[in-house]
């Protein structure tokens, strides 16, 4: 067991750090959260800078246009960009972390050539059309149907919780192509152009007050057969490839960010006198220890993936369970530090407190994650 980095990894870190120090001061300020076109432009601009510097799709395979970096190098990249305060992957999230890796793993040569370079350059944004009003945690019960008509599928249905739908060019869409097959076997994965006739996007206001998500309505939308990734009715397996990427790496940068938040809480508590409350002080101390341990768990999972040479596995569910709850505890502690000021909607950390409530729901609820842990790691029987 070793936590030191190789010379090559240290060189990689140093070069990245130097590049960040050079490029970040020249970056335009981040737009307001409600300014979707502005956010898209900002995120695309950052992605373009990454591309020009050779950091785009760092962990993607070389033949998909990436750099084929090791998991440890990817970890260093996420750690350093967060530490330096670089923009978050933002509107490019789905393209870079979901749809892109899925197309890289499952797409044909033509599909890879069509869709991957624009993701890496920041030219095209993707959104995720998985959840439906009747199919959230029970994703396999989705009902949006696609019927073959000549050289196209005709798609009708609706999707919900579609992040970035307002500014996305493409949607990784799960549809039912065989209503008579067992429910996991009749699903296909399509690339839906968001400007196709019949696509309607309606913003969805969250409890945080912002329109982070949207509903997407699909009314007899024609999607060419050539836009299907993987075999017809094999979309569930294709999707599982995507989800393992999401759970493996999605929150790495955020752990670093949470530790910085804790430092801000400590400074604030010292300034406003609440640090003298031993109960609050000890609560912050415990959270500091927990986030330190979560960072180590990240390193553990990455080195385990590196050893096995494979895709991140169910260990990501363990991490997500621990992290999503710790993040909520962090912002509850933040409210204690602020006192009544935490009730001011634009107070420091109050928007984060609100958005933290989604963490135990999005990307697989904690209840679903516990089922995954119990059945796939502990081997408990499937049941009710």
């Amino acid at each position, binding site marked *: *067991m*070793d*936590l*030191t*980095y*190789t010379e090559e*990894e240290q060189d990689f870190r140093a070069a990245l750090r130097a590049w960040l120090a050079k490029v970040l001061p020249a970056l335009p300020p981040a737009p307001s959260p409600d300014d979707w076109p502005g956010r898209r432009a900002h995120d695309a601009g950052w992605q373009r800078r990454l591309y020009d510097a050779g950091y785009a799709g760092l962990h993607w395979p070389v033949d998909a246009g990436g750099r084929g970096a090791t998991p*440890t190098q990817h970890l260093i990249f996420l750690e350093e960009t967060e530490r330096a305060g670089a923009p978050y992957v933002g509107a490019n999230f789905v393209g870079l972390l979901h749809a892109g890796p899925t197309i890289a793993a499952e797409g044909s040569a033509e599909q890879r050539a069509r869709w991957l370079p624009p993701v890496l350059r920041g030219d095209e944004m993707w959104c995720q059309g998985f959840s439906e009003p009747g199919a959230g945690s029970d994703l396999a019960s989705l009902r949006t149907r696609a019927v073959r008509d000549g050289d196209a599928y005709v798609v009708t249905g609706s999707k919900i919780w579609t992040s970035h739908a307002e500014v996305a060019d493409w949607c990784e869409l799960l549809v039912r192509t065989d209503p008579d097959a067992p429910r996991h076997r009749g699903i296909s994965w399509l690339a839906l152009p968001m400007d196709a006739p019949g696509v309607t996007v309606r913003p969805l206001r969250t409890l945080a007050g912002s329109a982070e998500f949207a509903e997407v309505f699909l009314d007899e939308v024609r999607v060419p057969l050539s836009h299907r990734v993987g075999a017809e009715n094999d979309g569930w397996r294709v999707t599982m490839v995507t989800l393992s990427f999401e759970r493996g790496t999605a929150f790495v940068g955020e752990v670093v960010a949470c530790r*910085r938040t*804790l*430092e*801000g809480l*400590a*400074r*604030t508590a*010292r*300034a406003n006198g609440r*640090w003298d409350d*031993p109960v609050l*002080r*000890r*609560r*912050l*101390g*415990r959270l*500091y*220890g*927990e986030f*330190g*341990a*979560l960072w*180590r*768990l990240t*390193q*553990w999972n*990455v*080195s*385990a993936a*590196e*050893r096995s040479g494979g895709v991140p596995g169910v260990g990501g569910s*363990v991490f997500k*369970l*621990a992290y999503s709850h710790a993040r909520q505890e962090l912002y509850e502690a933040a409210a204690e*530090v602020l006192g009544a000021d935490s009730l001011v909607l634009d107070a*420091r950390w109050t928007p984060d407190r609100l958005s933290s409530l989604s963490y135990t729901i999005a990307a697989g609820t904690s*209840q679903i*994650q*516990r*089922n995954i*842990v*119990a*059945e796939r*790691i*502990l*081997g*408990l*029987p*499937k*049941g*009710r």
Partner: protein
Amino acid sequence: MHFQPTEDQEALRAGVRALLAGRYGREELRAAVDGGPVVDRALWRELGTAGFFALRLPESAGGVGLGLAEGVLVFEEAGRALLPGPLVATHLAAGVVPGAAEGTAVVTAGDLDGGLVAYLAEADAVLGAAGPGVPAGEPVRSVDPLTPLHRVAAPGEVAPYRTAGALLTAALQVGSALRTLELAVRHAGEREQFGQPIGAFQAVKHLCAGMLVRAEVARTAVYAAAVTEDAGEVAAAGLLADEAAVLGARDCLQVHGGMGFTWEADVHLHLKRAWVRARQWRTAEQAEELLAAELLAGAGPPGPGDAP
């Protein structure tokens, strides 16, 4: 970065697991509970011969010359086996108290608050005691049948051993947490109610999943702290391991239902030992204060991102 056990480390762990499985199985455990000797002197010497106590002593001093990383792996196994006795104190006494390294001496320490000392009557020496030999003490009834307690006027000074002691104790806690998880999962897969194994019910599944998450986070924290030997990481590892062991045993008891509340089920032994260990070397309150101080020191002066 290769934050995974090496082949040698895995082999060492497997060796200790095999030794303990052969020498301290359920029969030996229950015999001790039923009034047998709490500390098995012959097993203590076998552990000494296997290098359990001299593990971190330099080879030049007759030790094995390994580090804390190996230490936490073998202590995790001792915790899993629920092996009684002052394992941590004797390990820390190797090279300090004659016979400790070889396992011919049983050495305890005043690592509990309130003047309580564990295994005093079984011990040949007390680590950090003012004088030689074992001080007098008043026996008290212990919550854990395999951790006899005495109240002692001056239990000695253990501050120099606190960090290593806390970390190795955390490793024992992790082993216990992983073991109670195993017991719970096995029971949930075998015990049937309402016509199916209770492990098929989400209410039971989610208890077990929670146990695994706590144990895995704690285990990683313990391993990382063993590698870095950082005071804050050791404190955090202790907090997480105590929680994993105590809550893990409680959840295991719950999964066992009525059977879990009986003397015959082993789970109460894990829970009671976990309670004792959570009070050894460093309490949760002390660990949280240490971490808070470290957080504040690292936070630096007020910054532009702070609240006004």
